[in-house]
């Protein structure tokens, strides 16, 4: 069976599942049935796409639907297969998690029908091979996810989240629509094959790039189009948040790659500059937002923005190298991007699952009310710890590998002839390093405040470990994070068909390297071996442990914390998320968020408690979106007076129109 046929039948299965869910959504067994169905189908699709990725066979399929004279084209090539792997891996893990998590869902009938539809939509976007089907599936995906965001529509703020999300989504779609309109030309040949073969003027290429940055960027969460993301992702049920953050943003990136790298042909170098700088800014801004955040799921959503920035930066690098014909370097940067796509989908899903587990166990998303969960839910906290280490780009986990590859690509910048790039690349490199370090800080905060320390509330004290489906899902993802971290060579080799197909270049075959180490360019330049690093750490750690336990004293006494003598203050006196972020807020926030700390210190003898109020401003929202909304509101009010005219005034409108047209006619000839 041709891969595409397999994939399409999986999609059909998912859609069938959605239909099924509508009918038995109120049945008690619905959750189990639907999720096991999606799990099975996603697994099937997952292995199918792995096969077609490794097999490297291109297959396409045309259905007699969609635009009548065109039909709906679907196609799997290396790129599509890779993203199908990501999508379906996410889908499978989410379904597995959902088997357990879904039991706690208050309104299953608002989740079950849309989840399979959402998965189907994402698969279809990746499969689509003509502009119309692409946009149709893209918007269908948005619609399904919107419905999922509205699943808990009674909670305050979710309505706004859904609204902002839907409007931004449609904005993005319209941008893509314009882009495809430009690509397809007046004749309107919307097939990707036709677009690929057509010649595009620089003017058109420029417009398309901008429109794609608006369209795909708004979906992926590029600053300043990111505003919907921290609202919508947390609003959805956690496994859906995982899908939206971990997978849907990647689908957006797929769209960007497909159009800019594949359809548009040879890029221009400054396109690289634009994407690179946007990526860098997005990365830093995203993680700074996350640093300021105290809501666990929102923090994760913001960190998604950061990772998207990283990916876009690598894509920008790839564009720059490609434009200058440096195929090897381009392949390196591109591989880094794709690798990071995979990694982020893994650990971000894992972390959202963890957040979901915390949510089910405590009913609390606000970190300031959590703490000490490592004692209550040890397994969850272990899995989440792995996720935090991985997303902080620390060896030997997978996050580090992709960042490392990206830095290697950054180090290739001296090859670039253009000055703008020469200067921009190291600067952005520094930005990315900053982002990485801040990410580490951010997740120290997230993990430390949520899982470590003492419980800040009864909710956290009475928490219990979550069900085993959720745990299995989390541990599988954690294991994958580690595997991808210590055996990166395999992944890189698996990605090489894509770079070969799209850039016409590839990285050296990693399988030939000794000891499974990875070598981007040449061993003399740089190399990294996750496996050995891990082995060394284990060995030396166990050596240390061995000697300690051999020779040192084993005596251990439990005692209240010392804390320089201020021993038992209330848990409220611990460092909270806000206070943890304070140094970084002082350093960066003052400028970027107009952050102010207002301290009311009552006079001595006054019994009022002292208060510290932190004032933060989202400048993007206040500077960009609020004014737009205001302008629309103002003009709406202004025009609305037309609703309240007298008949005579309406008549005079008609009369005026008539006279104007007649005048125009009189003057025209």
């Amino acid at each position: 069976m041709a891969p595409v046929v397999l994939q399409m039948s999986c999609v059909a299965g998912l859609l069938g599942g959605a239909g099924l869910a509508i009918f038995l959504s109120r049945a008690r067994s619905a959750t189990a049935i639907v999720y096991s169905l999606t799990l099975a189908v996603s697994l099937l699709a997952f292995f199918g796409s792995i096969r077609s990725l490794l097999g490297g066979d291109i297959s396409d399929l045309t259905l007699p639907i969609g635009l009548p004279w065109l039909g709906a084209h679907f196609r799997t090539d290396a790129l599509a297969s890779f993203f199908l792997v990501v999508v379906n891996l996410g889908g499978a893990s989410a379904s597995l998690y959902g088997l357990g998590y879904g039991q706690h869902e208050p309104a299953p009938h608002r989740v079950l029908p849309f989840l399979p539809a959402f998965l189907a939509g994402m698969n279809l976007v990746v499969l689509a091979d003509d502009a119309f089907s692409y946009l149709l599936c893209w918007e269908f995906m948005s619609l399904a996810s919107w419905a999922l965001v509205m699943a808990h529509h009674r909670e305050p703020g979710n309505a706004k989240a859904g609204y902002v999300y839907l409007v931004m989504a449609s904005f993005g779609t319209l941008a893509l629509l314009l882009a495809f309109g430009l690509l397809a030309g007046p004749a309107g040949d919307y097939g990707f094959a036709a677009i690929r073969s057509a010649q595009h003027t620089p003017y058109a290429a420029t417009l398309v790039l901008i429109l794609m940055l608006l369209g795909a960027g708004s979906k992926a969460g590029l600053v300043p189009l990111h505003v919907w993301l921290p609202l919508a992702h947390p609003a959805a049920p956690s496994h859906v948040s995982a899908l939206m953050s971990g997978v849907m943003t990647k689908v957006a990136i797929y769209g960007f790659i497909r159009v800019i790298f594949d359809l548009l042909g040879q890029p221009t170098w400054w396109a690289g500059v634009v994407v690179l700088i946007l990526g860098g800014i997005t990365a830093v801004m995203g993680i700074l937002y996350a640093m300021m955040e105290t809501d666990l799921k929102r923090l994760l959503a913001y960190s998604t923005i950061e990772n998207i920035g990283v990916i876009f930066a690598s894509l920008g690098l790839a564009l720059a190298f490609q434009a200058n014909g440096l195929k090897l370097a381009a392949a390196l940067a591109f591989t880094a991007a794709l690798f990071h796509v995979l990694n982020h989908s893994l650990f971000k899903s894992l972390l959202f699952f963890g957040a979901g587990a915390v949510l089910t166990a405590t009913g609390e998303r606000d970190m300031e009310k959590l703490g000490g969960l490592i004692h209550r839910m040890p397994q969850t906290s272990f899995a989440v710890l792995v996720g935090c280490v991985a997303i902080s780009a620390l060896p030997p986990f997978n996050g580090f590998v992709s960042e490392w590859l990206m830095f290697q690509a950054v180090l290739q910048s001296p090859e670039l002839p253009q000055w703008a790039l020469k200067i921009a690349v190291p600067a952005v490199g520094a930005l990315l390093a900053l982002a990485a370090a801040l990410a580490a800080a951010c997740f120290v905060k997230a993990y430390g405040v949520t899982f470590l320390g003492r419980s800040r509330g009864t909710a956290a004290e009475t928490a219990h470990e979550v069900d085993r489906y959720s745990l299995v899902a989390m541990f599988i993802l954690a294991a994958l994070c580690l595997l991808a971290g210590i055996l990166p060579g395999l992944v890189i080799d698996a990605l090489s068909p894509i770079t070969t197909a799209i850039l016409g270049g590839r990285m050296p075959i990693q399988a030939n390297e000794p000891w499974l180490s990875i070598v981007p360019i040449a061993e003399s330049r740089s190399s990294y071996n996750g496996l050995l690093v891990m082995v060394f750490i284990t060995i030396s750690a166990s050596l240390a442990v061995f000697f300690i336990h051999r020779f040192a004293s084993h005596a251990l006494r439990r005692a209240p914390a010392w804390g320089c003598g201020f021993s038992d203050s209330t848990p409220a006196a611990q460092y909270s998320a806000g206070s943890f972020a304070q140094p970084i807020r002082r350093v960066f926030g003052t400028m970027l968020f107009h952050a102010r700390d207002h301290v009311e210190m009552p006079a001595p003898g006054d019994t009022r408690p002292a208060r510290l109020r932190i004032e933060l401003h989202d400048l993007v929202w206040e500077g960009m979106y609020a004014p737009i909304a205001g302008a629309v509101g103002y003009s709406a009010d202004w025009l609305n007076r037309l609703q309240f005219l007298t008949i005579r005034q309406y008549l005079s409108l008609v009369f005026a129109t008539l006279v104007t047209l007649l005048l125009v006619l009189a003057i025209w000839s």
Partner: protein
Amino acid sequence: MQMHSLAFDVSHTLAGGLVLISFMMLYQDRLYSLLNVFAFHAVVLALSVAWQAFVQQAPHLYITAAIALVFKAIVIPVALHRIVKQLGIHRDIESAVGIGPTMLAGMALVALSMVLMLRVTAEADPLAREDLAFALSVVLLGLLVMVTRRNAVSQVVGFMSLENGLVLAATGAKGMPLVVEISVAFSILIAFIVIGIFLFRIRERFDSVDVSALDDYRGEHR
């Protein structure tokens, strides 16, 4: 030829007369006098239609002329007089725009219609051209009346004078099928029936047919 030029002159004067009377309507500020002027308007219309019937040897146009004479010149004005009396609408028309500006606007409109129509190529026969030009100006002036007058009766009058312009044009169009005149009369008839119904209902509801009384609702309350 002689005949033709005569025909031309007569119809020309009549049509021009209509335009002139429309101007008079613009000038009126009393309801009754407005109605009288309108009756006169209808009479002249009837004359010109009859003349056209004679010139074009199109006897069916006499029917139109008769309709115009009977309905517009007699029945309607009388009816409107009644309504005004019954509803006790105060007699003077408050107009949105002053008389002077209105007259000027009227001038401009007439000029505009002339410009537009006289540009029409001459091989459409001059008779039709002149007629059309005047008809267009009558239509526009009628509309102007509707726009500048505040109360329902005068708006109705304006509307009817607009219809007169249409009839003028229709009859000027040589050999225009009977269907159309009937439909014209028909539509005017319908129009009046419906307006009548409305005046009635409106009277049931409010104490005046002053449109502004209707306008207090205007869709959504603020």
